[in-house]
């Protein structure tokens, strides 16, 4: 019981987003952190360095981000819930092995506290410039899950959600926060451990000699044995069959595998996607926002309503898989969509693709200052004319 108390810091705290994320991971059962310092995610690593020995977990600061992601894939396969935290440049370095995690279906959580890019950019300034990289960063066809928190409390809650999704779908799950959410301090309520719902990976029900490591169950996800349990399986980044044997020539195996890896997310999108809808029932203008921007958007929508503008907000909690049906449905009902982003147009492209004939306006802002509600309201006024 001592250990459990130490893992879940039940109570009300004043924490930064980074700290809340680390505590959320610990509450979710994360017992392996492999990372590398990078502004603005360093605090997560620092917190983990301090907390992991307290709760019997492992902290290792690897020599680079590539080592970090490789180590957490190893830890995941050895049976631990594993996580890393980085920012844009480190996220770029991790892409090849994110592909490996997808291919070998390793449950992982990757936290990206986004900063100004591209390249070294503005390390201490916020940005929302990795939205597309999360989905398309690695080579090949694949699907991942990405969530965007918009408060410190959500940094705690959504990190737990990330772990649950990773374990359910055996896929790397990304938490895309920005530097403001990462560094700001807010109140966080941490519930008692018995109130936190945790999911762990499905284990095989067959004996080792009948186990096929990549044979899917009903929801397209194979049960996962771990190293040291006597299953003696082989996992490879090469295209493989259900037994894990490399099949580098077969057209059938390539088709089957790539499609299943994508379909296990696409076909389960309905269960994965989470959004928050505010005043969208009779809205004429919809604001689609995520992360820090959604806070200003919420304020803007409320103020706009007072002015008589029929505004509504769709706050995206799940970024990937993108809520296509939901956004398409909203696009049909409203006259115009505004997408405020702290980048030069990333998620707006997805909205445009899905909204089809409904006009979509990007409200782009780069640099330190997030959108002000007044700017969003002004954009609404312009769009409605």
């Amino acid at each position, binding site marked *: 019981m001592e250990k459990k108390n130490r893992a879940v*810091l039940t109570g009300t705290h004043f924490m930064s987003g980074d700290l809340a994320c680390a505590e959320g991971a610990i509450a979710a059962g994360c017992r392996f952190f492999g990372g590398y310092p990078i502004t603005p995610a360093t605090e997560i690593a620092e917190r983990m360095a301090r907390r992991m020995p307290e709760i019997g977990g492992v902290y290792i600061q690897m020599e680079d981000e590539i080592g970090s992601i*490789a180590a957490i894939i*190893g830890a995941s396969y050895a049976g631990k819930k594993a996580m890393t935290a980085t920012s844009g440049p480190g996220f770029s370095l991790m892409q*090849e092995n994110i592909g490996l995690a997808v291919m070998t279906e390793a449950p992982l959580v990757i936290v990206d506290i986004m900063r100004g890019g591209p390249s070294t950019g503005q390390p201490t300034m916020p940005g929302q410039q990795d939205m597309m990289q999360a989905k398309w960063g690695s080579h090949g066809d694949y699907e991942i899950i990405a969530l965007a928190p918009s408060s410190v409390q959500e940094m705690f809650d959504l990190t737990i959600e990330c772990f649950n999704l990773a374990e359910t779908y055996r896929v790397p799950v990304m938490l895309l926060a920005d530097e403001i959410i990462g560094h700001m301090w807010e109140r966080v309520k941490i519930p008692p451990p018995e109130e936190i719902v945790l999911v762990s990976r499905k284990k095989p029900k067959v004996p080792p000699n009948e186990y096929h490591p990549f044979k899917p169950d009903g929801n397209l996800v194979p049960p996962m044995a771990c190293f040291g349990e006597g299953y003696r399986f*082989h996992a490879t980044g*090469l295209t493989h069959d259900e037994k894990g044997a490399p099949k580098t020539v077969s057209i059938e195996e390539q088709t089957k595998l790539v499609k299943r890896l994508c379909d296990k997310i696409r076909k389960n999108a309905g269960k994965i996607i989470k959004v928050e809808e505010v005043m969208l029932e009779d809205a004429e203008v919809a604001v689609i926002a995520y992360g820090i921007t959604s806070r200003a958007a919420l304020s803007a929508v409320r103020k706009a309503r007072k002015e008589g503008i029929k505004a509504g907000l769709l706050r995206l909690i799940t970024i990937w898989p993108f809520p296509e049906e939901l956004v398409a449905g909203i696009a049909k009902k409203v006259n115009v969509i505004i997408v405020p982003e702290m980048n030069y147009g990333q998620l707006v492209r997805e909205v445009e693709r899905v909204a089809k004939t409904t006009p979509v306006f990007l409200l782009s802002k780069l640099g330190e200052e997030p959108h002000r509600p007044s700017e969003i309201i002004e954009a609404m006024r312009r769009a409605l004319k």
Partner: protein
Amino acid sequence: MTESNLMLEHPLAKYLRQERMPHIWCEGCGNGVLLCSFFEALDELKLDLDKLVVVSGIGCIGRAAGYVNVDSFHTTHGRAIAFATGVKLANPDLKVVVISGDGDLFAIGGNHFIHAARRNVDIKVICANNFNYGMTGGQYGPTTPLDSWTTTTPYGNIEHPFNLVHLAAASGAVYVARWTTLQVRRLRNSIEKALQKEGLSFIEVISPCPEIYDRYNKLGTAIDVMKRFKLVSEVRHGYDPAKAEITKDQIIVGEFIDIEKPSYGRLFREMTAKVQKKLKGGKAKCERK
């Protein structure tokens, strides 16, 4: 006896994934010999195969993980050691062996190797050194001798190669040895030692590459190369690895380093025990710094 029965009769059959045999390696390739020595070492030690994990990188030798009948993983190029670090630290009861090639471990994977050796992570690294990148058709690598012909050094290699045992020793490995694929018994003994030793052990295995490197550089058949190993190998145990060179006329082999040093895992667990002892009885503090 039928062929499949014969395979089961082979004294090392239980270490192989039978359904994937025969393996893809060329006639006379040293990879099979390396695997055989590895299996003989496992056999001697009677290791619990359920607790053994073999990790390999990309390359011809990288396919080895697929042939060994234990939990195994075939990583991306160069990342086998980082992956193995994660496995070992997550479950210290596992014995983790990295079997990979000279290019995978020391070109793209060089950084991971030196840090794993520096930290003294308790993994065993067996490097099949065939002096080139064989899988992709024979490009030069970090161990290719000067003046060698490879497809990307068509005018002769102008880069100096690594002395791998020197690099391993300098990075902090606790056990460093070099053997050729001819010295199977000594290789087996080294692998046994490495498996029982705490810390990062490194064994370099000089291997023929008959279809590619040896053919491009007119070194003869696989038998010629193995016979040459016999001629030019000189066993010098305890020799200074910095001087243990591979030249045209000499391959210095032997066990060069055999020291004791606590592994990263051990130090981490000791630190964890101290931390938890301090915390015992008290609530965890939610500290700002």
